């Protein structure tokens, strides 16, 4: 807790409250500290994943969310237990944000037996059903219809959970995006589509290959949805947009499509040095680093530097501990090769 001891009331619904509202605004101190911790945890874990890759301890590929932490933190923090996350291959951040232990994520990236899926899925398929992380999908667009199905179940059963589907700007140009948006709108499904517009589809600027300026928001009207663009580097703005969309979904108001403007500090994947970006662009965005912004926000709300520093230290220690556990963990046992192909646990295709 902050030294000043004040507790947040939270959730009074004052949309867009200014900092003049003080620590008892609609977000409140507890939630802000949660979102700060989540962002730092994602930042440190992703940075560690990159370092481990350089040491050849993270194999295969990996797609980092460095610079995009506020989107994951804001949307996850506004969720309730039971809400379901559907992620892409750039899904480490969203997985961590739901409370999945760092060790489980790094262990999977390092293909160890302590990994989230014991090395069977890898970096691009992080899944933790117990935390509501219903998979990370590596085929662009595939999970938007899947999220619709989870939302259809919620609607059918009268459950109150919301399906939240994260994807990049590049996804807005594939057919499944449009099929899913129409599907969700026609049936008023409780699903929230979150486009993380980091300006590059992979190596190509999204603006060069898209008919509209805002690849998600400018398509919303085609499905009768509101045009929503959010500062994706400001966790407060993200959180408020998330809360509004979740409330709408739970109230039977149907889907939302939210475009979050953000920027990835690293390349598309581990193989990409991101040389295609214009000189100075990264530096400009780093001035709007979500963690830097949020640290300043906490200070504005009267949270002491010692509290912030303590969170930073705690997170670094937890990432270090997780790293050591992963380094010490064995590789997966060989019998895993053929398990869980079918529901009987095995892979038998004949008698």
């Amino acid at each position: 807790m902050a030294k000043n001891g004040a507790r947040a009331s939270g959730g009074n619904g004052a949309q867009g409250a200014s900092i003049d509202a003080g620590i008892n605004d609609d977000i409140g101190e507890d939630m802000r500290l949660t979102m700060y911790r989540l962002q730092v945890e994602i930042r440190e874990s992703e940075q560690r994943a990159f370092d481990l890759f350089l040491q050849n301890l993270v194999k295969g590929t990996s797609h980092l969310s460095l610079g995009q932490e506020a989107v994951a933190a804001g949307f996850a923090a506004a969720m309730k237990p039971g809400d379901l996350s559907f992620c892409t291959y750039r899904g480490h951040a969203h997985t961590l944000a739901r409370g999945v232990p760092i060790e489980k994520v790094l262990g999977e990236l390092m293909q160890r037996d302590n990994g989230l899926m014991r090395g069977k899925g890898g970096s691009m398929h992080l899944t933790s059903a117990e935390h509501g992380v219903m998979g990370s999908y590596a085929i662009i667009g595939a999970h938007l219809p899947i999220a619709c199905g989870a939302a259809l179940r919620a609607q059918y059963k009268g459950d109150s959970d919301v399906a939240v589907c994260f994807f990049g700007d590049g996804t807005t140009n594939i057919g499944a995006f449009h099929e899913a948006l129409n599907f969700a709108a026609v049936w008023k499904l409780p699903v929230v589509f979150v486009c993380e517009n980091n300006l590059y589809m992979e190596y190509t600027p999204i603006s060069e290959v898209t008919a509209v300026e805002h690849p998600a928001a400018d398509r919303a009207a085609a499905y009768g949805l509101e045009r929503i663009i959010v500062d994706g580097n400001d966790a407060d703005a993200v959180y408020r947009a998330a809360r509004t969309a979740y409330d709408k979904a739970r109230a039977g108001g149907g889907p939302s499509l939210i475009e979050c403007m953000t920027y990835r500090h690293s390349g598309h994947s581990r193989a990409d040095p991101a040389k295609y970006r214009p000189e100075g662009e990264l530096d400009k965005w780093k001035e709007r680093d979500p963690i830097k912004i949020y640290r300043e926000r906490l200070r504005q709300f009267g949270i002491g530097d010692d509290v912030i520093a303590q969170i930073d230290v705690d997170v670094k220690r937890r990432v270090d501990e997780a790293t050591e556990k992963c380094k010490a963990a064995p590789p997966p046992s060989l019998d895993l090769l053929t398990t869980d192909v079918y529901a009987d646990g095995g892979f038998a295709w004949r008698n």
Partner: protein
Amino acid sequence: MAELTYRDAVARGIAQEMTRDPDVIFLGEDVGKAGGVFKATVGLYEQFGPRRVRDCPISEQAILGAAMGAAMTGLKPIAEIMFSDFFAVCFDYIANEFPKSRYMSNGQLKCPLVVRTGNGAGSRFGAQHSQSVENWAMMIPGLKVVAPSTPRDVIGLMAAAVRDPDPVIFFEHKSLYPVKGEVPDGEIVDQLGTAKIVRPGKDATILALALMVPRALAAAEKLKAEHGIDCEVVDVRSLVPLDTQTILGSVGRTHRLFTVEENPRLCGWGAEIVSIVADEAFYDLDGPPVRITTPHIPLPAADILEDIALPNVDRIVDRVHRSMSS
């Protein structure tokens, strides 16, 4: 006992499962109010209502994706893809999503759903609405694949598919929809992974699937009458799981193997079975296994061309007779 068309059996099979389990929902294009383009789902919308029988837009990816999302969170969806040829526009779900989610998640995710689809030729629809694509599904680890040939099997295997915890691809043959068969009253529940000996015989084993089963049966009668060759006809029914015991057992008795496949020749289901028999029953064989298939061509629209493309009774008789005489 009642006489039912294969088409009506589809609706009865789905209705049986929807009545039993309120978590079974059914979605597809024109499946509800219109009763399906093949009229195989007439009455379901009226019986179960729009919440459970859902008319979808022409969005095959959304249909299969939504079925998967509903399945992994607790429902038991039956999704229709109108023509199996359309698998090509939603193949990501069939090849990458349904069958891999359980494995990749190390058993955390499940995908209990059924995709039923109109498969096969005979309607003169041309190359993009006539294919037999069971092998597209058969080759993917994680899927189960069935293709019934009779109204009774439609109901029983539908029940088995809906109750199965894995994703099942259910191939209905379009040319069998009007065919009638005896169906017992009451609930029918069959078993996946079981072939059926539909005509016992001692001289040769003929394996067939779906529309090729009645043709193989007619050929067997002709072979007996005209050439004195007594063929055992096995309806394979289930490609995954594959009932190799029944197949190897039959070959062990007859010592000859023929497959009758509607698919184009390369990588048809019969190739896999011939390979299994060669591996495990080579010394039981008195002659080379013979595959009777559609040539390796796209299907033509014209009736006289389509008719000579698919294995027909005369071709089966001729191939079996020639092979048995040499």
